[in-house]
């Protein structure tokens, strides 16, 4: 595997991001102005009724963002295991584009009142987007 230092650094950073996104329930204090919420304020709308509750407190990011962050970490963790399955293959990019398309369809359907998405559906659709965003660069870490 190439770029081991970069891989480890990003793995630690993504792990911290997921841990921080769990919010005040795990880090102490109360939701609303908590430092974990301020950390993600620039990247997430943090609408309370679109946010999971963790250990009795609202998480620091909404369900879709949490799905994406968890997916990024999961995908990053899978990189060393994928090896030849991704080397010079097109399927990760195709899956990433499909996951992005699913987000657009889900958001548009909700916006135009065709259906009402839920916290679970937002989380479940965010998960593959994050995961394939990591997997799409997996071949760059392979030595062969």
């Amino acid at each position: 595997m190439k770029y081991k230092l970069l891989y480890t650094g990003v793995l630690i950073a993504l792990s911290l991001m997921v841990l921080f996104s769990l919010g005040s329930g795990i880090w102490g204090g109360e939701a609303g102005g908590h430092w974990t919420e301020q950390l993600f304020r620039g990247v997430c709308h943090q609408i309370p009724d679109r946010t999971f509750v963790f250990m009795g407190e609202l998480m620091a990011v909404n369900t879709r963002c949490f799905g994406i962050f968890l997916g990024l970490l999961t995908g990053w963790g899978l990189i060393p295991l994928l090896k030849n399955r991704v080397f010079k293959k097109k399927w990760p990019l195709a899956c990433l584009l499909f996951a992005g398309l699913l987000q657009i369809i889900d958001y548009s359907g909700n916006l135009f009142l065709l259906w009402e998405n839920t916290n679970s559906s937002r989380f479940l659709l965010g998960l593959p987007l994050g995961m394939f965003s990591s997997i799409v660069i997996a071949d760059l870490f392979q030595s062969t």
Partner: protein
Amino acid sequence: MEMEEVNQEQGNSFSFSAYWPSIAIVGAIFSLISFVIGLYFGYQQINSEPTGSFISPIMISSGVICLATAFAGMLAVWHYTKEVSPFMKLGQGALVGFLTGAAIVIFSTVLNELWLLIDPEYTEKLIEATIANVEAMDLPADARDDMVDAMAQSMRDQSFLRQLFIGIPVPGLLNMGTAMIGVKLFAKKEDEISF
């Protein structure tokens, strides 16, 4: 062929002076975009009647800004590969992405501070409008008061350095990710060099 050799040498040796233009140009453009979007939704919040809805303009703006700026890292890599050298290592791309994310936060924080010279009451008006919206929400009185106090405190405790310290890590990491995708999409690898 000579040009390719020169470009490859640039790709192998990391020189900040070669990367800064891409970081600065893309960072400046995207910070301006995020500043304008933030201002648009901010004034929309100020000038609208409190609806009591959780989905307020100021809440929407952060999601829109995130979407708009997350691709800056990828664009900085694209700019570098077009204007400087087609060769770029993954680690170099990651650093360019993180620094582009940091540049966006720094530039947009400076622009926000400058805006306060034009409209010194902007922050106060935004806090008042946000609180008015929270007060119109159908929540238990205790929860509403706690929410108002927390929001007011977090919006007022925004010193310049604090905004940078707390604002850079997450956008930096997200742009690092898109920049690495940019390396995959736009940068030439060493085994693609044709002699």
